[in-house]
């Protein structure tokens, strides 16, 4: 009974994973026979002049670090307001903050490309309205701000998820703890640091891991907004793998990029899980 489902999984996920590892050691271009060339692809990736590896890696790390910490920080902050400060309509606000999560990424990117539009986009229009013309810029065309603009899109999508998760976690903390704390004279700040934060630590650990993983799954955001531009300033590893593998049909080289990405993702998750294993 288990076989048909697992077979689909094996054919369309497991085998491609193995193939990726194999192709990364060959010069296959999708048509002719593949030649085994050892680690040449990796050497080219790491040392070649034309390789975009380091800029893509830097952008991936930027995205991973800020795309994990900022949404989680905002999520805890908001959940604390909505749940601990007994905000009325807490449920409705959760619904609103979560909504970007369910929109198609095409819609999201259309909205944000338009918001970031330099000539008549709403963001520059607001800045102009407030008399802050000096801050107006081409948000997706300026190499210095493009990664921050993309991060703004990503946080918009992601932070509502964390808010909802932490709301659920905080609602699970027993109210007696807070009542006891109040009798002992603890103010809201003490309550947050000594009851709420320890109470959600389990959820926090798993949410950080989920955010790290999802911060790597942003191929579509880059694809739909900047296509790696301007120049190569918003290249990320998965977009680099896409252009090499599907546009330039250098399958071997592209596979080497994918494997590097996988190694990066798995080692970050493994280190993180090791670090937090004791606390669980």
């Amino acid at each position, binding site marked *: 009974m*288990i076989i048909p489902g697992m077979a689909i999984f094996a054919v369309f996920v*497991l085998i491609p994973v193995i193939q990726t590892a194999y*192709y990364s050691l060959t010069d296959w271009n999708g048509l002719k026979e593949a030649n085994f060339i050892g680690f040449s692809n990796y050497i080219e990736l790491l040392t070649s002049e034309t390789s975009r590896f380091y800029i893509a890696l830097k952008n991936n790390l930027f995205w991973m670090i800020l795309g994990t910490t900022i949404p989680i920080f905002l999520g805890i902050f*908001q959940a604390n307001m909505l749940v601990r400060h007994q905000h009325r309509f807490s449920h409705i606000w959760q619904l609103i903050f979560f909504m970007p999560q369910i929109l*198609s990424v095409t819609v999201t990117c259309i909205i*944000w490309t338009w918001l970031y539009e330099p000539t008549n986009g709403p963001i520059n229009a607001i800045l102009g309205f407030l008399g802050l013309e000096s801050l107006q810029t081409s948000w997706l065309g300026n190499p210095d701000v493009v990664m921050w603009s993309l991060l703004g899109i990503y946080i918009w999508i992601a932070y509502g998820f964390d808010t909802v998760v932490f709301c659920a976690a905080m609602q699970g903390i027993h109210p007696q703890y807070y009542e006891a704390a*109040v009798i002992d004279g603890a103010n809201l700040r003490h309550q947050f640091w000594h009851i709420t934060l320890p109470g959600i630590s389990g959820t926090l650990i798993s949410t950080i891991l989920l955010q790290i993983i999802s911060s790597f799954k942003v191929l579509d955001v880059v694809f739909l907004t900047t296509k790696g531009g301007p120049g190569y300033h918003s290249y990320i590893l998965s977009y680099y793998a896409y252009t090499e593998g*599907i546009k330039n049909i250098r399958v071997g080289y592209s596979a080497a990029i994918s494997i590097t990405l*996988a190694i990066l993702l*798995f080692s970050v998750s493994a280190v993180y899980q090791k670090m937090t294993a004791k606390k669980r």
Partner: protein
Amino acid sequence: MIKIPARVKIFDAIMIAIFASYSLLPVFWVITTSFKTNEELTRNGTLALPEHFFLGNYPEAWEAASFSDYFLNSVFVTVVTVAVIAFFAVLIAYCLCYLNFFGKKLANYMILFGLMIPFELIMIPLFHNIKKMGLINTHWAIILPQIALWLPFSVFLLLSFMRELPQSLIDSARLDGAKEFRIMRSIVTPLLKPALISISIFNFISSWNNYMLPTIMITSDKLKTIPLGLDAFRTKFSMNVTLTCTAAVIIALPVIIFYLIFQRRLITGLTVGAVKE
């Protein structure tokens, strides 16, 4: 009840107003712009409210992007994906939970491994394999990889629910001579209904919104799904902001309605993994 000081409440209200604008204003502007004419947009600027509700953009956008075809394609792809995943996920989770068989450990590891595989890692070989199988430019090139990629999460979720069902229920059914298949169908599946609904909604939204897979696999205009419709639109009418905004509203509307109806189940489905662990 703990008393919240007034200044904290005021601070909260300000912060929530800021975040709500961040989350809502982009969507709000897109909706208002969809009711404007292009002439009005240039005359009054982006931030002004529409002078009157101009509905003409809607039929025009619908026609221009042949959304009716895309809509049917999306429905087909999504329904098949959701149904097949639900069916296989119950089968696999049931076997992994209640039966002992050769290779069970391996199957368990495969599911856990599958949870971590990002699409980005496998897309290149997947594209070439599907080309070789002759499935490229068919709906199966979207459906089959979707099933394979999302099945592990659905199995994982069902398993965590199944483990909380009382074992005695299964044991007594077995004592009464019920076959495994019957236990699965008549006892376990009805009890799993909430979890099944959650994973189905989750898979529905993911499939409906999926962008990269159809982009890579589908080139024929007739077979495109809704998210690609907006894409085609963007390149054809890149200067036409009002029409593009209208198309975005058309695409997002079914999902938003769906979200408002099923919000609780959907949010549970999406967040249960994080809270449960």
